[in-house]
């Protein structure tokens, strides 16, 4: 769920950028080191990133009829690890803003934090923890909970920016959380199912 351009107050936008920055610096250093040792990794990472961008532009079948898009967050985290995924995810988000007008430049920091940092880390953690329960279950939980974590963070970001005049942050979280619960939980489940189908096929290849 992208926060659109100009939606966040400037201070919030700047603050989320600062929060996301250390993760990106670590990820970028790691990529710089990997590619110094293996220059071909540049081609592989760029291909994976291009794939992630295209995946996010494919429409996901949805029960409600509304259209949504797979985030590929869980899949990316499982395949490449969360620190590399933070940088790839950030580039994908930049392209989504510039090529599709999804998200924005000033809100890039906030979106990177929810979608390219928290989502992948949660997915990766779930995958590691749930791996003994079987590949399918681990992949499903990783992808679904990674998505839900992203939505939860987005809810928090919006609530912090727009506290309810009457009930403050608690009310704002209830409001924004309510919308996301209705629309995004089914999508997170679908993303989980989709990722299981994909990983099963990849394992078989």
């Amino acid at each position, binding site marked *: 769920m992208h926060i659109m351009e100009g*939606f966040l107050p400037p201070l919030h936008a700047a603050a989320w950028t600062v929060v996301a920055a250390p993760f990106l610096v670590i990820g*970028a250093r790691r990529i710089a080191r990997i590619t110094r040792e293996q220059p071909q990794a540049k081609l592989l990472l760029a291909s*994976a990133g*291009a794939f992630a961008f295209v995946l996010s532009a494919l429409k996901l079948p949805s029960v409600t009829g509304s259209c949504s898009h797979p985030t590929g967050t869980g899949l990316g985290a499982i395949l490449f690890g969360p620190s590399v995924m933070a940088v790839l995810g950030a580039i994908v988000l930049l*392209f989504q*803003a510039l090529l599709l007008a999804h998200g924005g430049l*000033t809100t890039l920091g906030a979106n990177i934090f929810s979608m390219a940092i928290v989502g992948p880390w949660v997915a990766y953690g779930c995958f590691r923890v749930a791996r003994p329960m079987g590949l399918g279950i681990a992949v499903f939980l990783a992808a679904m909970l990674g998505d839900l974590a992203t939505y939860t963070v987005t809810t928090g970001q919006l609530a912090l920016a727009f506290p309810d005049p*009457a009930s403050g942050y608690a009310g704002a979280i209830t409001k924004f959380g309510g*919308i996301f619960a209705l629309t995004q939980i089914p999508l997170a489940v679908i993303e989980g199912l989709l990722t299981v*189908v994909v990983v099963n096929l990849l394992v078989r290849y």
Partner: protein
Amino acid sequence: MLPIDRFAWTNRWSSHHPGERMLLAGGLLILTLVLPPVSTAPLVLITMTAATVLGAGVPVSAFIRALAVPAGFLLAGLPFIVLSLDLDGAPSLVVSAEGARMALEVGLRSLAAMSCLVGLSLTTPASELIPWLRRVGVPQAVLEIALLMYRLLFVVAARATAGREAQEARLGYTSFGRSVRSLGLLTAALLSRSLARARRLEIGLAARGFEGELRVLSRPRALSPRRLATAGATLLAVGVGGLSLSQVLA
């Protein structure tokens, strides 16, 4: 796929130095964020639309279409700022004056900011914006990956589109269950083929002497002082206009 990109390469300003457009769109974006939105945002929206449509010659329909999707999300989200949730006693939703004022400000600010983003991306290819990230300290390796990704995403997108068409021709999206399965099949195939393509690209680039750096030369383009001055004057006018209009409104 990706009509915004097509206009970015074919508009009237595409042969100009990208810095000129970054100054205009980026400057307006900053003004939108820092100045009072109710007075500034409409000026920014008008200026950016005029620049993109009249200046760069992007069809107004393309500008509106690019703006429509995020603006739709914006409209859907604003009621939740207008409505206030009262948690004391039985929870109830009420329209609050403060909420309405905030929604107006956020809505205008966001719409104006989107027009800057859309105006910039309809007139300037993403591949010309990315190299500027070097100036904020992004490592060369990451920039090279981003630029390569820009090229490859069109290649992958073409395969994704064709694959989707082939699956639809074979009735792969006629029910929910089939759709999830078809999309899963498509995703897995795209991923493994993207990685296979990376290996073929490795061979293709090795034949051209690739040893680690993806260095290329761009055609030199000069910044036009006249256009820079025009952009600066526009920014000044919008800034002064926004500020004085907000005084009048107050």
